[in-house]
C-alpha cells in the first residue's frame, strides 16, 4: 500500500518534497482532531486540575478570600457525618437503579424479541419516555405521587390507603429510583434487543433437539452470549446513576432528611447553594474517584464474567 501511495502524482504545494503523503496526513490528522482535543483540554483536563487545586483551599466567596489549607477539606470529608448518609443514599440509589433497570430492560427485550404481530408498536411505546423531556416526565410523576395524587387515587378506588410517597424516607427513595428507571430503561432495552437478535438461531435449535428447557436455554445460551452487552450497559447505567440530579431536585430536594440526597445533589448544595466552593470541589474529587474506581473494577471483571467478546 505504501508503494501505491508514493506513486500518486503529487500536485500543487505537494510538489515540494517536504510535503510527503505521510506528512500531509499527519497534518490533516492533527487538524481533524484539534477541536475535540482542545475542547477536552480546556473543558475537562484543566477543570479537573483546577477542581483538585480548589479542593486544597478554603474559599470564602463573601469575604473574597482563597487560602491554602492543604488537606483540611479532606479531613472535613472524613468528619462530615452527613456525608456518610449521602454516600449511603447514593449507594442505595445506584444499586437499586442498576438492578431494577437491567432486569426490566432484559425482560422487555426478551418480550420484544418474540414473534408477535404489532410488536413494533410495543417497542415504540416502551421506548417513548426516553424522548419525553426529563423534567416534564419528573413533574408528572411528582404530580402522580402527591398524597392526594393519581396513584393514591387509583389505590383508593380499590380501598387501599397509599403512603405520602415523596415525604417518607423509604417510599421517597423507591419513587426516585422508579421514576428514573421508567424514563430510561428503553435505551438498555434496545441495546439488549439488538444483542438478543445477534444470537444465532441454530444454537437454540440445537438446544431444543437436545431437549433443553427454555429457561436452561436462556441461562446457558442467551446470557453468556449477550454478556458483553450486559457489562457495557451496567457500566453506562452505574455511571449514569451517579449523575442523577434533576429528578432529585424536582421530586424530593434530597429529602425527607437526607434520605435521597445523592452525592451530586449534595455537591450542588455545598457549592452553589451554600457557596462552599472548596468543599464542593473536594466532593467533586470524591465523585471522580468513585466513578473511576467503579469503571475500572467493572472493566477488570469483564474477563471473568464476559463469556466472549466480539
Amino acid at each position, binding site marked *: 500500500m505504501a508503494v501505491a501511495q508514493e506513486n*500518486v502524482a503529487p500536485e500543487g504545494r505537494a510538489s515540494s518534497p517536504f510535503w510527503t503523503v*505521510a506528512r*500531509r*496526513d*499527519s497534518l*490533516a*490528522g492533527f487538524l*481533524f*482532531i484539534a*477541536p*475535540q*482535543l*482542545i475542547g*477536552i483540554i*480546556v*473543558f*475537562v*483536563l484543566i*477543570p479537573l486540575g483546577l*477542581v483538585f487545586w480548589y479542593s486544597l483551599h478554603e474559599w470564602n466567596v463573601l469575604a473574597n478570600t482563597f487560602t491554602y489549607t492543604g488537606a483540611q477539606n479532606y479531613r472535613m470529608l472524613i468528619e462530615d457525618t452527613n456525608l456518610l448518609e449521602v454516600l449511603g443514599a447514593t449507594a442505595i440509589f445506584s444499586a437499586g437503579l442498576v438492578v431494577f433497570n437491567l432486569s426490566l430492560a432484559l*425482560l422487555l427485550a426478551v*418480550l420484544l424479541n*418474540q414473534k*408477535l404481530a404489532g410488536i413494533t408498536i410495543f417497542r*415504540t*411505546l*416502551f*421506548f*417513548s419516555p426516553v424522548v*419525553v*423531556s*426529563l*423534567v*416534564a*416526565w419528573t*413533574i*408528572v410523576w*411528582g*404530580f402522580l405521587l402527591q398524597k392526594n395524587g*393519581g396513584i393514591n*387515587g387509583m389505590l*383508593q378506588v380499590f380501598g387501599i390507603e397509599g403512603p405520602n410517597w415523596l415525604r417518607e424516607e423509604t417510599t421517597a427513595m423507591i419513587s426516585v429510583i422508579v421514576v428514573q428507571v*421508567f424514563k430510561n430503561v428503553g435505551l438498555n432495552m434496545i*441495546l439488549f*434487543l439488538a444483542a438478543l437478535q445477534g444470537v444465532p438461531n441454530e444454537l*437454540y435449535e440445537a438446544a*431444543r433437539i437436545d431437549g433443553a428447557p427454555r429457561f436452561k*436455554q436462556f441461562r446457558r445460551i442467551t446470557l453468556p452470549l449477550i454478556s458483553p452487552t450486559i457489562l*457495557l450497559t451496567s457500566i453506562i447505567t452505574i455511571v449514569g446513576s*451517579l449523575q442523577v*440530579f*434533576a429528578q432529585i431536585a424536582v421530586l424530593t430536594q434530597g429529602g425527607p432528611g437526607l434520605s435521597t440526597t445523592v452525592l*451530586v445533589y449534595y*455537591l*450542588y448544595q455545598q457549592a452553589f447553594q451554600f457557596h462552599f466552593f472548596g468543599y*464542593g*470541589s473536594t466532593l*467533586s474529587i470524591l*465523585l471522580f474517584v468513585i*466513578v473511576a474506581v467503579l469503571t475500572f473494577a467493572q472493566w477488570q471483571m469483564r474477563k471473568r464474567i464476559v463469556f466472549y467478546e466480539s
Partner: protein
Amino acid sequence: MKAELSPRMKVFLYGLMCVLLVPFVFPTWWMVTSSVKPISDIFAFPPQLVPQSYDWTTYQKVFELQPFVQQYWNSAYIAALVTLGTMVVSSMAGYAFARIRFPFANTIFMIVLLGLLIPSEVTIVPLFQMFLKAGMVNTHWPLILVPIFGAPSVFATFVMRQFFVTLPGELEEAARVDGLGRFKIFRKIALPLARPALASVAIFTFLHSWNLFLEPIVFLSSADKFTLPQALTQYTDAYGGPMWNIQLAAATLTALPVLIVFIIAQKQFVEGLAHTGLKG
C-alpha cells in the same frame, strides 16, 4: 426461543406487555389530560382518566407568567447549535482516529476518552469559575461550548470512530488516486456513508442538550435566559408550591413536539440508537 408460540402463550404475552406498558404510557396521558382540567378537578376523586370539563386558560397562563416563547426558543436554538456542532467536531475527530495515521494518535485517543470517565458534574465548579472570569455567566455560551467541545461530545466521537473503522480502505485509495486530499475524501466519500451513525449522534446529542438541568440552573439566573427544563419548575405559587395545572401545560408543550417527531420517525430513532449500540 424463535419457535412458533401457542395461542395461549400469545394471549399471555400480549397481556403481560399491556400491563407493563402502564407506567410507560400513562404518565404522558395523565400529563396531557390533567393540563386541560380546571384546577378543582385536578385532584378529584375518583381520578378522572378523561377530563370531565375543560379549562384552556392554563395554556394562556403558561405564556403570561413567564417569557415562555423566549425560553422555548432558547432551548431550541441551543439544542440545534449543540447538535450541529457536535456532529462536525465528532465526525472529524472520529474519522481521524479511525482512518488517518498520525503521531501519538493512540495517546491522544486515550486522552480524549478520559472525557467519558469524567462526568460533567465533577468539573462543574471550576467550569463555573472559568465562565465567571470570562464574563459568560448568565449567557448561553457554557451550555453551547462545553457540550460541543468538552466531555459530552466524546461519546459521539467514539461512535463515529467505531463507524469509520468499518469503512473499506479501497474507497479511499481510489479517491486518492484521483488526487483528492484528505478533507475532500472525508467530505465527499466518508461522510455521506456515515449518515446512519451521524443520525444517531444527532438524536442523542439533541436529547442530551434538551434535557440539561444542572448546567442551566448553575449558569443562568434571569428568566429570559432560562431553558425549558428550568422554566418548567418556575411555575410556583407564592408559597413555592407548584401550580400543577400550569406546570403540566408547560410540560405538555415541552414534551409533545419531540414525542410526535419520535413517533413519526421511530424506526430511525430506535434502530439508530441500537446501532450505536455499541457494535464493536
